[in-house]
């Protein structure tokens, strides 16, 4: 039986100030199908989603030409698109408007409380319904945003880089959620680099390069799959040799315990660590396991409930969002006119660029090198590769590798297995 066409895109071109971003994109999406859009960073994947929703034209003043039809209706604006499309942005917590997940699902659908609770149970997120939306992890926020599409009876779900902020377990949960939505008859467009992850779900792949799109039926035939395979080889070249002879002790932690003032349970229990110079320590664990809390304790931002920490003066702590670290409006000021150090992280071309215009990868590089300038002895870095594509993530690991060679000691809290490539020691929390 022939499936119903849900979305038809014909000759869609997007440009900014006459500079083309996307050229003559044409594809069709049928009911209950999943399409994966992939390509290198900056190729226009997110721009394509924005063009489909009308956001490109209305919020970003991009020039969008071409025909978009949803369920037979020609789409000209975001309000027409919003009848059919549910859009989940890369940082999923920005797709949630209400302070509690239950209110989000309740306010944006015609369904009653029983239906929403039942839906949440089906998608294994019931336990988070009554919590604060601000406290949701990226994976939980993503799943709430996804089941909202179903609760609000939308036909198409657009998901931008769904897995870039997630740990392994959360990635699998999100993929399962998307699979269930597909089984329930929703059509999905997923943007991601991680083509292998989606291989069991997607029906076709739209690969974008130089503004043009090419359709593939199998993820393993896409150029990006082969590029990622060769990238894995480069991770192996990063290994730092552990040499424990004649090393100074930089940090000593003995029997560390911590609980938040309004909590009855300890989030950190009897943690011990001894860090010597030149080490890269990897604190691993899933989202919400207490990795960031531990880094804050080591940095002195939080005071331990029990235990002992002997740390060097002026520890620098780079949080998950590097913008929280940066304290100057332009790169050259943040680096105190250190042009040589800017060269170390390939930022010499952006010295006078306002921080607001830097990409996430550039911000992270800037924050790491700025912290290194201020205190080379001990750097604490929270999730240095989160939200970055594999190429940018490799760039960051290269920089950390270089800093360690320059005499730094680094403690990284991360759920990403990539950190294993440079870690000399690891601890699980």
């Amino acid at each position, binding site marked *: 039986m022939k499936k119903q066409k849900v979305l038809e895109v014909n000759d869609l071109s997007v440009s900014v100030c006459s500079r083309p971003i996307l050229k003559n994109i044409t594809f069709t999406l049928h009911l209950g199908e999943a399409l994966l859009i992939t390509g290198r960073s900056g190729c226009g994947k997110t721009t394509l989603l924005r063009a489909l929703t009308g956001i490109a034209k209305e919020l970003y003043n991009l020039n969008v030409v071409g025909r978009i039809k949803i369920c037979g209706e020609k789409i000209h604006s975001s309000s027409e698109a919003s009848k059919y499309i549910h859009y989940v942005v890369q940082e999923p917590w920005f797709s949630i*408007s209400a302070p509690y997940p239950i209110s989000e699902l309740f306010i944006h659908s015609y369904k009653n409380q029983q239906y929403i609770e039942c839906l949440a149970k089906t998608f294994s997120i019931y336990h988070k319904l009554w919590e604060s939306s601000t406290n949701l992890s990226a994976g939980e926020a993503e799943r709430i945003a996804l089941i909202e599409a179903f609760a609000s009876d939308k036909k198409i779900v657009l998901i931008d880089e769904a897995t870039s902020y997630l740990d392994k377990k959360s990635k699998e949960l999100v993929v399962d959620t998307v699979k269930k939505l597909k089984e329930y008859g929703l059509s999905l467009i997923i943007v991601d680099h991680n083509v292998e992850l989606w291989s069991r779900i997607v029906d076709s792949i739209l690969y974008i390069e130089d503004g043009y799109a090419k359709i593939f039926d199998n993820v393993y035939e896409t150029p990006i799959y082969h590029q990622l395979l060769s990238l894995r080889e480069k991770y192996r070249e990063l290994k730092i040799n552990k040499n424990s002879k004649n090393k100074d002790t930089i940090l000593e932690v003995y029997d560390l315990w911590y609980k938040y003032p309004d909590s009855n349970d300890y989030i950190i229990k009897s943690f011990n660590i001894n860090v010597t110079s030149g080490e890269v320590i990897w604190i691993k664990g899933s989202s919400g396991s207490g990795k960031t809390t531990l880094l804050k304790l080591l940095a002195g*931002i939080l005071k331990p409930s029990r235990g002992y920490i002997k740390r060097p003066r002026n520890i620098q702590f780079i949080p998950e969002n590097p913008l929280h670290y940066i304290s100057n409006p332009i790169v050259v000021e943040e680096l105190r006119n250190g042009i040589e150090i800017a060269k170390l992280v390939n930022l010499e071309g952006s010295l006078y660029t306002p921080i607001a215009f830097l990409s996430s990868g550039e911000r992270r590089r800037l924050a790491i090198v700025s912290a290194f300038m201020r205190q080379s002895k001990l750097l604490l870095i929270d999730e240095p590769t989160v939200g970055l594509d594999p190429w940018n993530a490799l760039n960051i690991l290269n920089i950390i590798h270089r800093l360690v060679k320059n005499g730094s000691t680094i403690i990284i809290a991360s759920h990403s297995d990539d950190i294993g490539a440079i870690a000399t020691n690891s601890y699980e929390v």
Partner: protein
Amino acid sequence: MSILSRSIMLLSRSLFLYGLTESRMGSTMILILFAIISILIVIKNPFLSIIPITLITIYYILYSMIKQLLYGALVVAIPSLWMSLSNVLALYIMAKPIDIFNVLTIFIKAEVGALAILFVMHNINIFELTYISQLLSKKLTFTLILLMRVLPHFLKEAYEMIYIHKLKNEKMWKTLAMLFIRSDEITAFFTEGLYLKRNHIKPKLLYKKHTLLVQLILIIVNTTSFVFIKHISY
């Protein structure tokens, strides 16, 4: 961590980061009325504020939130104390006699008034608030829920930025400037994330019978006390 910073941390977490507890499933309108009557009682006779304070305490105990009340009382005691002491200072400068009773009255009025407002803020029912606001304007409804969503998000980020900049030994004005940049960015992200949803908001009422019943008892006792006080004072 000092007791004051612990209190501020706990208070802001309880206001913005706690979930939709059962205590928040009553009626905000009843709570606002309760707060107004409590303030009227305090104005009429500050020493009878023991009645609304007892009622508020019972509510917090009932919903296992007594810690929040204690820390809240401690935090609001600072401006209350400042108000009463500035009154002492003013009298001293003007070379007028200082009346301890008057100083105590000012403190109690400020403390109980602030606690009554905190009580409402701790227990806002988002469903009722959005339902009533949509009767006025849909834009107002979206603004209200977004405000309750964005404020804790921004506060959480602001805390982190302040602490990290402190480690960097940066000046406060630089932190503030970066907070402006970040708030611009947060606005842009939320705008894109919620752009398609802006026209599809359908507020509905949701209550818990038990919470409504407790709040009704509270307001009946408070109103009766107020009428009684008014009657006596005539």
